[in-house]
């Protein structure tokens, strides 16, 4: 479990992430390295589909830890994030005990939720708080308390504290601004869209059957499309899917430009955007294939 050489430098960490099929640039590798070494949470922000959650997964498996994911949503509350008592079992225990004394607040009656799970084994788990911008600001305050001390107080039991600081990764789509206090407490990295070369490399890593020339053409075309004012710019996952779909169509007998055009629904998933891009699609693909 212990791999000291892994996080000795940002470069070795980037290498370990590459082995997990995640290509991190220098800035991201440095930010992750610092987060692990300083014991601070890492806040990843970026447009949808640039691989924020993927990054967290890759970090967890590179470090040989399991990933505990807390998906945020509007209305999430402490019971979903911290812990809950298993009341049904408590009631049963009272029934069964009869005249005997029974401790209702034992560990066996406690249901650990993600934050608590991480507190219990900080060196074996990585906590991912996904899409924190979707939660209410009250939940953000709760999280702030957790992230500063890494402890949870249960009225019936007292305080449970992490033995040492766990690795925490937060992601946000930036649909709203996060509290300044939360940003301050975290290391920060903005994940942008990768350049064409890196994107081609990612496509080839993800789908080995796609030829290199195809991957390059897709990366070029997607980059071109993202530069246009469309409502939902395609993410990396969509680019990978597009390359894959076009390859399958080409094997089925469509010539190249035709295969790309027919697979466009995989890349752009908004009717207005499709109408906007369709007239220019031939030019974009033609330019990329050259």
């Amino acid at each position, binding site marked *: 479990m212990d791999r000291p050489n892994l996080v000795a430098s940002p470069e070795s960490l980037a290498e370990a992430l590459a082995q997990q099929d995640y290509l991190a640039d220098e800035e991201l590798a440095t930010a992750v390295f610092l987060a692990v070494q300083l014991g601070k949470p890492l806040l990843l922000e970026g447009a949808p589909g640039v691989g924020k959650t993927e990054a967290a997964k890759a970090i967890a498996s590179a470090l040989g830890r399991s990933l505990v994911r807390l998906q945020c949503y509007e209305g999430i509350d402490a019971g979903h994030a911290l812990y809950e008592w298993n*009341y049904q079992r408590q*009631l049963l225990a009272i029934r069964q005990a009869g005249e005997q004394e029974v401790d209702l607040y034992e560990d066996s009656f406690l249901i650990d939720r993600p934050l608590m799970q991480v507190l219990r084994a900080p060196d074996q788990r990585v906590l991912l708080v996904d899409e924190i911008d979707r939660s209410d*600001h009250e939940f953000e305050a709760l999280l702030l308390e957790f992230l500063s001390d890494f402890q949870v107080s249960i009225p019936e039991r007292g305080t449970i504290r992490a033995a040492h600081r766990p690795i925490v990764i937060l992601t946000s789509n*930036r649909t*709203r601004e996060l509290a300044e206090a939360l*940003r*301050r407490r975290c290391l920060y990295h903005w994940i942008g869209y990768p350049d064409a070369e890196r994107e081609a490399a990612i496509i080839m890593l993800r789908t080995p059957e796609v030829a290199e020339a195809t991957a390059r053409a897709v990366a070029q075309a997607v980059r071109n499309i993202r530069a246009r004012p469309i409502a939902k710019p395609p993410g990396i996952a969509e680019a990978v899917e597009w390359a894959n779909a076009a390859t399958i169509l080409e094997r089925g007998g469509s010539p190249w430009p035709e295969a790309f055009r027919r697979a466009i629904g995989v890349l752009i998933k908004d009717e207005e955007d499709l109408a906007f891009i369709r007239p220019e699609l031939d030019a974009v693909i033609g330019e990329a294939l050259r």
Partner: protein
Amino acid sequence: MKRGGPRTTRPALPIEVRPFQDFARLLRASGFRVAPEQLTGFLRAIELLGPRSMNDIRLAAVATLAPGPDRRPEFEALFDAFFYGVGQVVTTSDGEEEVQVKDDASIAQHEALPIERREGGALSASAEQLSKRMFESDAGRLDRFRREIRSRLPSRRSFRTVQSRTNGILDLRRSLRQIVRGDGDLPAPSMRHRLIVPRRLLLLIDISGSMKDYTQDCLRVAHQVVQGTQSAEIFTIGTRLTRVTGALKVRNQEDALARVAALVDDWDGGTRIGPTLMAFLAIPRFSALARGAAVVIISDGLERGDHTEMETALRRLGQRAFRLSFCTPLAGDTRFQPQTAALKAILPVLDDLVDGSSVAALTDFLLSLGRPSPSAAAIWRKVS
């Protein structure tokens, strides 16, 4: 960064650290928020990384001092200016801009004043007639508005739960305690549910010269908002930013408006919506009021000069707010189209762009805030 040594003397930071402290100070002076813990994080990060090159220091700064993507170029420029000594100009000009928002504005506005008044003169005759015709019903309308506004605001579910008798989910924790207390008996199960609370209403009223004919109506509506709700906040924006919520807490309308009149210094001046809203966002205790609130800006959107700052301010405001609405008196005209460059630019970030020309229009709109509606861009695209 604990270092060995006797505890009585405070361990002084080594002299090599000083440039980094100075850099943080420079960032603060340029409007970046750098907390002490971020600075210590920065120093520890540099230590951890080697540092083997200047690039290590840059990466450490980017990760720990957390510049947002929109301010990244500015951050890079400051970094280069400080550590490499290139492009020093950027830093000084930035500092001055921040101050100008509050200070010399009133002097500059005096020249602009008569011109803008003359512009409004032609329109005022017809506007006055309109308001006279509506005057009779306005008092009753405002009264009804005050009684209804609290229940018509958009709401959110509170994080806290309260005990309830009928609806909600079973409060197992409380019930279990009752069972233990009652020796295995439960007379009636406890229930709890999450409260539904109204969101805050934040009104930003433009009181510049071009809005002269409408400000009084706006303030009368604002007065009723403050009287009818718990947590509304009212600001006036002109060349300065003034919080008038306290003045409007006075029950009597005439007294309240008189207090506002005394409080605000920049009546009927020029319009500097962008800089004033940026000032609003820069003050944490004010900008926190916009978080999750229904934000309504009453203005004609006739920004003097460049509107990019206004666009930035509104985008940031929109990210904080639950719903961002823009009421413009110009939309009272049926031929109105969002054609000015400023309105076109801000249209994508707005949730509503509606008529704010009379008490009736304003109150009707505010009462409809709780109901969902298509975004402003979708509505106006169809019209045009």
